[in-house]
């Protein structure tokens, strides 16, 4: 039998859910109008809550962007007096102003409930011992999970980030059963355990990991599960939307339920800004409908994903979003077609002859915009010239089927593409008119 943290809300009918969303959208707009930012925006667009008749009308509202948050730093988005706020989280901006998110006491309580709901969904109970390896402080993965786990009733171990040996000592000494951890660190921790002669399955009580905060592939998840003999669930959060708890995988491990009693979810084409149908990739746009201190309306997350069509076997009616497919900032437009580098990557990764390094170059040849994809071979070589030609042709055909344009594919030898430190450059645009 499937157990729910809040059965009524989690399995609410779509009709009732949409009714609830509309009511909460009205409340949100009324509150938002008290912030200096939305006061200006609503006046500019001549809109107010009474002009919204249905969820469809949401489209009449303008988008909110990260730049708006930066420009109204620090308190220009506050919809309630600061004396009624009890916490702020600020994200460090690498460029320009950082962003600030304010919380009332009720906001914090709702956020904790959101996280508790997620954790309960993946089987975590008040009998569990939950260790949070997130950094605390401004980073929302720390306090976000802390309050959520306490709300759920777990015994919490706020171990915070780093020091693998200490983490492992807590896990074995306290009998930790659940962990919140970054995927790459989960693999590191498993390696340290093995090096220390600790068998995660024999010597620990670990059974469930909440993994998130950095993009990871399905293969990486399965590797974590195998290495540690646990179940790992993908969690999604972003600091502008409180932090963790926005969306979370259920036990089906097929998409992340996004809590629609907290947020209204839209997927838009980042160029036309029009909604895309379910199943189609676009930019995730979120509206908070259960936040007092700092409502955000149609916030453009820049994250690319899609709504998974169909109902989930777990019985929850809240929509599921797919694993993230990149950032809309990375989108390329070629010959009127929208292309995301991740699409290219997904095709290339299907060929075992290829390595993992590739470079997309957009250029103008004879007044035509062309895409050149250079990809390194992996540990593959051949004495047979026709095999290379066939490989080139097969990959090109697969790329064409996915991208709808025909790129020029060039196989290059292993190690010949530039390797950058930090953020990898995958796309170079040399087009004349760009």
């Amino acid at each position, binding site marked *: 039998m499937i157990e729910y943290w809040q059965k009524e809300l989690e399995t609410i009918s779509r009709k009732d859910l949409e009714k609830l969303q509309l009511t909460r959208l009205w409340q949100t707009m009324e509150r938002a109008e008290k912030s200096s930012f939305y006061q200006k925006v609503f006046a500019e667009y001549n809109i107010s809550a009474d002009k919204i008749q249905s969820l469809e009308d949401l489209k009449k509202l303008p988008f909110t962007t990260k730049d708006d948050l930066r420009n109204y730093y620090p308190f220009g988005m506050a919809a309630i007096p600061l004396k009624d706020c009890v916490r702020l989280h600020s994200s460090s901006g690498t460029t320009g102003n950082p962003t600030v998110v304010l919380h009332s006491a009720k906001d914090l309580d709702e956020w904790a409930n959101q996280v508790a709901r997620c954790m309960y969904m993946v089987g975590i109970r008040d009998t569990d011992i939950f260790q949070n390896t997130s950094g605390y402080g401004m980073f929302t993965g720390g306090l976000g999970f802390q309050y959520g786990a306490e709300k759920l009733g777990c015994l919490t171990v706020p171990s915070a980030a780093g020091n693998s040996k200490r983490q492992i000592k807590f896990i074995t000494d306290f009998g930790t059963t659940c962990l919140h951890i970054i995927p790459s660190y989960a693999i590191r921790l498993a390696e340290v355990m093995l090096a220390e002669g600790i068998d995660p399955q024999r010597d620990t009580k670990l059974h469930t990991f909440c993994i998130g905060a950095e993009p990871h592939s399905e293969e990486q998840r399965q590797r974590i599960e195998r290495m540690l003999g646990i179940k790992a669930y993908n969690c999604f959060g972003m600091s502008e939307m409180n932090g963790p708890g926005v969306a979370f995988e259920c036990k089906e491990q097929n998409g992340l339920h996004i809590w629609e009693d907290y947020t209204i979810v839209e997927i838009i084409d980042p160029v036309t800004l029009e909604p895309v149908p379910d199943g189609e990739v676009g930019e995730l746009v979120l509206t908070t409908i259960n936040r007092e201190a700092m409502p955000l309306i149609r916030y453009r997350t820049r994250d690319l994903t899609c709504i998974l069509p169909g109902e989930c076997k777990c019985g929850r009616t809240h929509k599921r979003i797919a694993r993230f497919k990149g950032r809309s900032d990375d989108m390329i437009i070629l010959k009127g077609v929208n292309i995301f580098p991740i699409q290219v990557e997904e095709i290339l990764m299907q060929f075992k002859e290829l390595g993992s390094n590739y470079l997309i170059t957009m250029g103008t040849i004879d007044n035509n915009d062309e895409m050149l994809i250079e990809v390194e*071979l992996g540990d593959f*070589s051949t*004495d*047979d010239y026709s095999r290379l030609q066939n490989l080139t042709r097969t990959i090109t055909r697969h790329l064409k089927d996915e991208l709808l344009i025909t790129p020029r594919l060039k196989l290059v*030898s*292993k190690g010949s593409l530039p390797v950058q430190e930090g953020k990898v450059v995958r796309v170079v645009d040399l087009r004349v008119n760009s």
Partner: protein
Amino acid sequence: MTVNQISIFLENKYGKLNELLTLLSKENIRIIAATVADTTEFGILRMIVSDAQKAHQLLKDNNVSVNLTEVLAIAAQPAADGFADILSHFTKAGLSIEYMYCFSSKEKSVLILRTNNRESALEVIRKQNLKCITENDLMNL
């Protein structure tokens, strides 16, 4: 009856070939024969070296994608009709030659061949009593 050939994917970038050859010579691996098949896009460097296994490992360790292929190495008379005789044995047996190249040392000429069917090719060699060069011979060339 066969020898190992080293095949390396080559982009048409200056210096890449030079780099590879320097790597081999530093380890005293001699290049007995080499050929590059190329187009504007890329090429394949095929080589017969004095120690194919050692060369293979060395290149691998240096992050070069490399392939070892068994090829036929047949001793021939150093005249054009010597090559023609040998090739005709294979074509008469219905085999097609995927590629061939040759090298000479002192009085000996050697034909390097790859056909589309290894077993039938070996059969031809046995029947026609052709003289093959072995890996050991290569080290002593």
